[in-house]
């Protein structure tokens, strides 16, 4: 018999190291043709940081995204990045980029100010050019500025860094550790179908809302949300390195035994929305995001299984064996 059920879950996730103190640096240079070299240590592991961080630089300088080169190739060139983990790249890397871009704009204004004999505060960097606030027709394109500075003995490169408060020790008595970059949130509803003969569980549909401060790069965000569905399904239903933990027996050694979700395991649709409650310290209000895509799926699946067959199985992966045993116990 096939039975359907729905489950609900809500979660939160933190941005950055727990304890803080994990810095990033950024460097953004104006090339001689008016395009830019954004140098970062942040590694793109597929999450799309090259894309999102370039968008942040483009926005702050008000130049097209296509004008930004993202360079992270080696540790001689790349400024310090603590790591592409803890959902920290957008918030901490992004803030370092904002600081670097502001430094660059200040240097641009100083250079052009000296060139034109005007005060730096009378200049505006916007719309892919630099111009006089009171006379916008007195302007220089980024290309012209790149050439003028490079061949005029200048070197227009912005430097920036950002370090969250910390590192802090956890208080030994209370466990207090109040320094934190940000917290993001999500709610998920999942509908499953349980086959009471095989114990198999299929995820039919999912519906989600993520609150992440600001979706810097929405196509990348979608990738994390839908990608999280796949990992959540795998963790909830099939993945275990030691299937009979705490026993050390039968540790797996190939993908035939460590079973990941495939296209056939996905719901036909993952309806989702991204909400934005701007964080005061995040770049353009962004909080950290990416890891949390799998989190809410798993308890929602457990609740949905309960809704379908009336048993609470609070162990994952909830394999067919666990489902059948739970059903048998229920009968007794």
């Amino acid at each position: 018999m096939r039975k359907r059920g729905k489950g609900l879950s809500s979660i939160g996730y933190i941005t950055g190291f727990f304890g803080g103190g994990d810095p990033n640096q950024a460097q953004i240079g104006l090339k001689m043709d008016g395009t830019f070299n954004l140098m970062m240590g942040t590694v793109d592991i597929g999450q799309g940081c090259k894309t999102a961080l370039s968008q942040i630089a483009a926005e702050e300088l008000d130049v097209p995204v296509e004008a930004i080169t993202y360079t992270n190739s080696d540790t001689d060139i790349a400024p310090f990045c603590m790591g592409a983990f803890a959902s920290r790249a957008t918030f901490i890397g992004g803030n370092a980029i904002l600081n670097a871009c502001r430094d660059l704009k200040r240097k641009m204004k100083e250079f052009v100010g000296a060139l034109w004999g005007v005060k730096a505060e009378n200049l505006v960097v916007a719309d892919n050019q630099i111009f006089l606030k009171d006379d916008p027709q007195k302007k220089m394109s980024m290309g012209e500025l790149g050439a003028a500075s490079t061949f005029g003995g200048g070197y227009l490169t912005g430097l920036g860094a950002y370090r969250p408060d910390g590192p802090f020790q956890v208080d030994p008595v209370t466990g207090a550790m109040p320094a934190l970059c940000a917290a993001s949130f999500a709610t998920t509803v999942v509908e499953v179908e349980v086959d009471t003969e095989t114990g198999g569980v299929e995820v039919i549909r999912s519906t989600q809302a993520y609150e992440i401060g600001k979706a810097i790069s929405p196509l990348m965000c979608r990738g994390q949300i839908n990608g999280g569905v796949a990992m959540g399904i795998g963790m909830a239903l099939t993945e275990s390195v030691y299937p009979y933990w705490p026993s050390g027996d039968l540790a797996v050694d190939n993908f035939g035994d460590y079973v990941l979700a495939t296209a056939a395991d996905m719901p036909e649709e993952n309806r989702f929305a991204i909400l934005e409650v701007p964080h005061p310290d995040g770049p353009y209000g962004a909080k950290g995001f990416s890891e949390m895509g799998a989190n809410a799926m798993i308890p929602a699946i457990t609740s949905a299984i309960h809704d379908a067959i009336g048993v609470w199985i609070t162990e994952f992966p909830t394999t067919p064996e666990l489902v059948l045993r739970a059903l048998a116990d229920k009968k007794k």
Partner: protein
Amino acid sequence: MKYPLSFTLNGGNVDALVKPTDTLLDVLKEKLNVQSPKRGCDTGDCGSCTVLLNGNPIRSCLTLALTVEGKNIQTVESFASKEGKLHPLQQAFHNHGAAQCGFCTPGILISAKALLEQNPHPNRKEIVEAISGHLCRCGTYLEVIEAIQEVVGQSGKEKGK
């Protein structure tokens, strides 16, 4: 002891000296410097080594190199036109965000191309079946399906679900 191997790769003839135990993946990557097929598991589970053998998708990590003597192998490097224009599948994958880390993407593109060549108007179920042998840990499946559906839609009608 090595043996000569000759086959057609992406429209051109290639030669290599191979051991009997070399797989097609070993030869493609380490002797012929073909970048797109990937070594994800070497046991035929993940699909990232998938290439076309006489038009059919096969696991190059499970295929002994000497068995492709005289045959026709195609990888993703053959997809773009002679002028470098992306194949509609490649363009659609790119536009829909169907690649994240990109490691499994060439293998999926191979299976997608083989599907559309054998069945120009697959429904969603047929698309899922064609790509369900590919493991993608980034979880791009929904975007991949969307991208393939767009290409199917571009080419005319779609069979009912």
